[in-house]
């Protein structure tokens, strides 16, 4: 019976088309399940930019705000603090913020003071080593676990990494990178939005 070996090309074509259509529906359905893994609208809202009012911040004072579950520091530096950034340059691992610049330092902060205005430092308070939160040691002068010519900055309690008042990491410390400067912008003289700049949201 040669009939049994004959392929009905019309039926075969329809079979292929049906399988293809079913396959498309299957892939689209799988896509929906994959998409459920994306951050939900609520998580995105919680990760939205936050606005800080710095009008009440006196020179030399620091404020911590939470953005995406991480502490973000806003430090209003005194002129002396800004001047200290010139002295630390030679002891730093990456004084010009060139390493991982796209992630750590937006273009407008790739300067000595790592900020838009020299006065205001905005940085994520998470050490680039293993993610501890460093402690502020803003006062200059010799202190326990700090160098004798300490100019003020931050000390990570976990493994002793130190950072200057622009969040730049000192040489020969466990932390490889400077503290991250998040994308931010001034909406007025005293209001800063963290997590968003002229180019869009981080």
């Amino acid at each position, binding site marked *: 019976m040669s009939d049994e070996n004959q392929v009905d090309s019309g039926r075969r074509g329809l079979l292929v088309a049906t399988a293809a259509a079913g396959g498309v529906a299957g892939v689209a359905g799988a896509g929906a399940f994959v998409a459920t*893994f*994306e*951050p*939900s609208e609520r*998580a995105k809202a*919680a*990760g939205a930019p936050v606005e800080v009012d710095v009008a009440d911040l006196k020179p030399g004072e620091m404020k911590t705000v939470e953005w*995406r*579950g*991480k*502490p973000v520091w806003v430090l209003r530096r005194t002129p002396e603090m800004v001047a200290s950034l010139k002295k630390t340059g030679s002891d730093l691992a990456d004084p010009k913020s060139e390493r991982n610049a796209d992630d750590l330092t937006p273009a407008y902060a790739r300067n000595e003071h790592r900020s838009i205005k020299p006065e205001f430092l905005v940085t994520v308070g998470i050490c680039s080593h*293993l*993610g*501890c*939160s460093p402690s502020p040691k803003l006062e200059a002068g010799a202190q326990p676990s700090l160098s004798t010519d300490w100019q003020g900055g931050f000390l990570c309690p*976990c*493994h002793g990494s130190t950072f200057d008042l622009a969040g730049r990491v000192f040489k020969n410390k466990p932390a490889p990178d400077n503290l991250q400067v998040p994308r931010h912008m001034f909406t007025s003289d005293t209001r800063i939005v963290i997590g968003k700049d002229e180019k869009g949201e981080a």
Partner: protein
Amino acid sequence: MAFHETKLPEDAPVAQKALSWVDDRFPLTKLWNDQWGKYYAPKNFNVFYLFGSLAALVLVIQIVTGIFLVMNYKPDANLAFASVEYIMREVPWGWLVRYMHSTGASAFFIIVYLHMTRALLYGSYRKPRELIWLFGVGIFLCLMAEAFFGYLLPWGQMSYWGAQVIVNLFGAIPFIGPDLSLWIRGDYVVSDATLNRFFAFHVIAIPLVLLGLVVAHLIALHEVGSNNPDGVEVKENLGPDGHGVDTIPSHPYYTTKDIFGVACFLFIFSAVVFYAPEFGGYFLEYNNFIPADPLKTPAHIAPVWYFTPFYSILRATTSQFMYALIIGVLAYGALIMTKTQLPSRQKQAAMGIAVVTAILMLVFDAKFWGVVLMGVSVLIIALMPWIDHSPAKSIRYRPDWHKWVYIVFGISFLILGYLGVQAPTDGRTLVAQICTIIYFGFFLLMPWWSKMGEFKPVPTRVSFKPH
């Protein structure tokens, strides 16, 4: 064929009638006989052959204790830690159920590592048992996933930061990495969303896959038959009854031996559960008794012991070590070019892949390659059936110096495991790097070393002395 109801005499026992009624409708007796009752296994099994049934026992312990834990556990970032403490302190006997589950996790890995050692020693992965081995590798991967997802659930500091570090490993993948980490977490940091999805994977998704793989592992084993410490194919020497002359039915012979093994295991297992459930911080890490705090990292993060050999390989991959790896990859390409009988096109392809890999090793940073090496170090065992070219399956009939190769490999693996729980120093990193090279060298050079040397003649019958 028409349905045929088996007729038993009127005075047959009720149980026999019931079984017959079932057997006419479902192959119950046949399944039992095929899979165990009349499964003829080699008579020369030794103590290494207990770990298969013990692994099955621990799987049952994990599933049963897991079900009871889920009845009181709350997969919510605000409630999870407290619900685990609630199980420990207020649920009657809850502490026992939880300690059985946490000790069971470590016991599972001890048993599985010994089960794999057995396979390595006696060549149990060799033809025709390749698929048994591959299903086994799949089971091992599922176990690792179970352990990783499960470890987040208590929502302690190590849970939280361990998950943070592991999920961030995916961030090292070029181009898609950061988005991939975000997708896995479902949030910008490890959060409630992450906890919920890990819970779903731990209690339903992975166990389903795991059970399927275990069934496939056993069906494949009972299809081709067990290997044995001599590596002799017992099916090649059949007796008049059609079974191998060197085989005995699993029931009752191996049933009784396995029950003895279970008794010994439960003795040790209970001792740990009742007297040392934390096992000095190795089974339950001390930092995990502190609730997860996203703003503060513990000073020293180490994975649980069963992951540490692979974690050491990850940490050993520093930017200096990349140069050693590049030389290694190019040398391996040259080895394939000169020392194989492959068709020249395959040789050129192998060399091309080696050169491209070497170039990519210069392009992408060491962090990414550390992740790659860690993944490869787990998956490379899947190649065993095809890279072992030894004429003898069992270590017993291999050249004596092969035993030293296995011992050096085993010691390197243990050193990697030890270093993984220690904080890194320059000296330790160097040792880890040497062990990493030994680890990969063992597998990658196996096609050559496994057939070198003077092999002993493999007997036609298994060596067995009745007691």
